[in-house]
């Protein structure tokens, strides 16, 4: 008896992929349908049609009743306590009160369309496990896939950042060569890093947001908001479009997606857990055993000048 795998392999090899013309035609038709669909969504009712409908006295009366009822329903809807009326400021308030948080950040970046000839794009993806403990302790365990500019081969790099904003110190651990670097920065004003996304960097007040309604995310009912980017400034790290989904009950983050409008990069933050006990050792600035301490590069010492002997 012949083994089944051979037949399975043959079936997999049975390909008909069509020629370039076929694909060009199908894609063009699909794109045309897409254009038409978008135009239909945006297209207003033509004046002739409206005039015909509104000629009748009955339809005018019916339209008036519909408008009055609609206004009444809208007023009731806005004034009742529903998810859609949840103010974004309320979400920010809840987020500012958290003691600890852990989450996963997934990032992707793609080369720009107009990359000059011969230029090398160092992009890739990363998965970052993040932890925050009030006040001002952060840890990020990053696995980054990058294209090596020399060999152009993708490689995986692991890095650990431990940040103490109280002391203005950041420890960088490189497990690949077992080295540690302790950098300094300006200590002082700090907040939960997740709130950086929500607050205007200059005035520190919650940004404007529009409701995205509700949907189920990770098995929970979530309320969505889209942050409206201000023309006068930029967020500390978020993109052109930032969608935030919070738990309908706790008002705490469930998912956050942010990215460039042209789709060149995006971050997704998920798997959030709040107010759980996190061991202090996670945020220790002492390098683990076996790590060799390196002297940080001069630019990272600019805030705290080196001591004179």
């Amino acid at each position: 008896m012949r083994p089944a795998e051979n037949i399975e392999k043959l079936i997999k090899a049975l390909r008909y992929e069509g020629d370039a013309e076929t694909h060009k035609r199908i894609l063009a038709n699909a794109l045309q349908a897409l254009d038409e669909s978008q135009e239909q969504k945006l297209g207003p009712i033509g004046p002739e049609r409206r005039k015909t409908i509104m000629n009748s006295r009955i339809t005018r009366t019916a339209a008036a009743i519909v408008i009055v009822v609609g206004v009444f329903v809208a007023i009731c809807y806005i004034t009742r306590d529903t998810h859609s009326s949840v103010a974004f400021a309320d979400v920010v308030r809840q987020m500012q009160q958290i003691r600890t948080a852990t989450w996963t950040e997934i990032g992707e970046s793609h080369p720009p369309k107009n990359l000059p000839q011969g230029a090398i794009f160092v992009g890739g993806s990363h998965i970052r496990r993040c932890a925050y403990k009030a006040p001002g302790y952060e840890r990020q365990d990053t696995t980054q896939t990058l294209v090596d500019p020399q060999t152009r081969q993708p490689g995986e790099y692991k890095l650990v950042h431990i940040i103490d904003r109280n002391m203005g110190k950041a420890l960088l651990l490189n497990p690949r060569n077992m080295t540690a670097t302790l950098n300094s920065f300006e200590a002082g004003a700090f907040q939960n890093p997740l709130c950086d996304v929500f607050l205007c960097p200059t005035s520190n007040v919650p940004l404007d947001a529009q409701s995205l309604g509700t949907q189920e995310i990770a098995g929970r009912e979530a309320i969505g908001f889209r942050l409206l980017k201000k023309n006068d400034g930029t967020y500390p790290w978020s993109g052109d479009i930032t969608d935030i989904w919070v738990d309908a009950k706790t008002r705490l983050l469930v998912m956050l997606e942010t990215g460039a409008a042209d789709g060149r990069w995006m971050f997704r933050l998920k798997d959030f857990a709040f107010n759980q006990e996190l061991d202090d050792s996670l945020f220790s600035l002492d390098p683990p055993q076996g790590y060799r301490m390196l002297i940080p590069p001069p630019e990272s010492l600019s805030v705290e000048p080196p001591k004179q002997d």
Partner: protein
Amino acid sequence: MLEDRLLLWRFKRGSKDAFRLIYEKYAADLLTFAANLLGDTNSAEDAVQDVFISFAKSVGPFRLRGSLKGYLATCVANRARDYSRRTKSRQNVAANKAARAAAHSRGPLQSAIYGEQLEKLSGAMTQLPYEQREAVLLRLQADLRFKQIAELQKTSTKTAQSRYRYALDKLRSTLNGEVEK
């Protein structure tokens, strides 16, 4: 998976490039799947086109639950059933085209032997009952799990597995010694 979600995310925000990338990523596989399922390249092209047009129109409310390829393949399978009822008579032409295309992708020395096997196989495929052919192609060319195939065929997982197994047995006996060990 993440790449698909990223593409969908971009497409939902109006990126035509993202739609093009989705098309370029999956169109060839879907066309192969449809051609083998229907045994007719014209109907296969129409089915794939219909699916991408519907997909373009429905992406607003669309939410991906499994893999994007699985979703699109399921759409093609559904569409193919409609075409299958209309175009039963034109099957062998496309199946043989698919076999020849696969054979030519090999070296010249092997392609004659290999092409013969594939032509026999594609001929044998058209002789299978539609549900069995669909189960085999959904599993091997669209990478769907038996549970997903069962959902599509509105039957139990065991029946989907049996259809797959019966189909392979029939193909094996039809080829009868033509498949290399």
